[in-house]
C-alpha cells in the first residue's frame, strides 16, 4: 500500500526529479545513478513525511540535498545500493528531445556552470516557486533569495544576449 502511494507521488513529481538530475549530471550514466539515489532517499524518508511542509517543498529538499551530496561525492559509482542499469524516469519513445530546444539547451548549459547551491536556486526560480518557499527549501532568508536571484538573472540576461 505504502509503495503504491509512493509510486503515485513520484509519478506526480517526476518532472522535478528529472530536471534536478539533468541539471546536476551532464553524464547519462551518472544521471541514472543520481536518479536512483534520489528515489531511494525519497523512499527512505517517505514514512517520515507528516505534512509539516508542502509535499513539493519536501521533495525539492530531499532531491536537491541528494543531488548536492552526490555531486560532491568522489566515488559516485561505488554505491552498492544502486543496482539497476536503466533510467526509471525517461522520455517516451516518440521522443521530445530537450537538447533540440535551443533555449532549454542553453539554460541547461548555463546551469551546468553554476556551483551546486546556485544550481538549486535557479532550478527553484525557473520552476516558479515563491520566494518564501525557496527560502524555506534553501535555508536562507527571503531577502537573501531576492538578492541572489537578482544577481543570477543579471548573468543569465548577459549570457543570453551574447548568444
Amino acid at each position: 500500500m505504502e509503495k503504491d502511494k509512493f509510486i503515485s507521488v513520484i509519478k506526480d513529481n517526476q518532472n522535478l526529479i528529472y530536471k534536478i538530475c539533468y541539471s546536476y549530471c551532464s553524464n547519462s550514466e551518472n544521471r541514472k545513478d543520481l536518479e536512483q539515489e534520489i528515489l531511494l532517499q525519497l523512499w527512505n524518508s517517505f514514512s517520515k513525511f507528516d505534512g509539516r511542509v508542502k509535499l513539493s517543498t519536501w521533495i525539492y529538499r530531499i532531491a536537491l540535498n541528494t543531488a548536492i551530496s552526490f555531486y560532491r561525492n568522489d566515488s559516485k559509482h561505488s554505491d552498492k545500493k544502486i543496482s539497476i542499469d536503466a533510467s526509471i524516469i525517461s522520455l517516451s519513445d516518440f521522443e521530445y528531445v530537450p537538447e533540440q530546444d535551443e533555449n532549454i539547451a542553453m539554460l541547461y548549459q548555463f546551469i551546468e556552470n553554476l556551483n551546486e547551491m546556485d544550481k538549486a536556486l535557479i532550478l527553484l526560480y525557473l520552476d516558479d516557486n515563491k520566494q518564501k518557499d525557496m527560502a524555506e527549501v534553501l535555508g536562507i532568508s527571503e531577502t537573501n533569495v531576492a538578492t541572489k536571484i537578482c544577481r543570477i538573472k543579471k548573468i543569465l540576461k548577459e549570457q543570453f544576449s551574447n548568444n
Partner: protein
Amino acid sequence: MEIEELKSAWAQYDKKLTQNLKLNEELLRKMNLEKSRKEMNTPLTYEIISIIIGVIFLLFIGSATIRYSNEIKFLLPGVITSVIVAIWVFNSFSKIRLLSNIDYYYSSIVELQKSINTFNQKYQKYKKFELYSIPIFAISAFPILGIAMRNFDIYDHPIRFIIGIVISFILGYPGTIWIYKNLYDKKIRNTSKFLNDLSRFEKEE
C-alpha cells in the same frame, strides 16, 4: 531574450516533460526499497560496534595494566594503549552524537549540507588520529598483551621487540602518512572549502 521569456520557455518545457516522461513502475519496485531502509543506519551500527569492541578491549587492557602496575615496563605500555583506545572510543561517541544530530528529513539544504560536511570534516580529523596512532598502539600493546594473554615477556626477547618497533615506525608511519595524504587530506580541504562557501551563501545579502 528577456528573463520572463526564458521562464515561459522553461514552463513550456515542463509541460512537454509532463506529456512525454514515463515512470517505469516495474523498475522502481525492483529497486529493493525495503532493503535500502535497513541500510540507512549502517554508519551508526559500525560506530556502536566499534564502541562495544573498544570498551571490552579497554576493560581487558585496563585490568592487565592494574595487574602488572608494579612493573613500569608493563605499566607504561598499558597506560599508553588504554589512552589510545579510550580516545578511539570517545571519537566513536562523538561521531554518533554528530550523526544523530543530522535531520535528513526536515532540514533545509544549507542546514543539512552544513551538518553533513561538519560530520565529514570531524570524521576525517578523527581518522587522522586513528591512522597516526596505529604504530604507537602496536608498539605499546605488544608488551602488555603478550604478558596478559600468553604470559610472554617481550623484554626477554629484545631483538624481536626492536624489530617490531622498527617495523612499526619505519613501515607504519610512511604508510599511514601516505594513506592519509592520499585518501583524506584532499577531502578535508574540499570539505572545508564547501563549508566556507555555504557560510558565504547563507550570509550574502
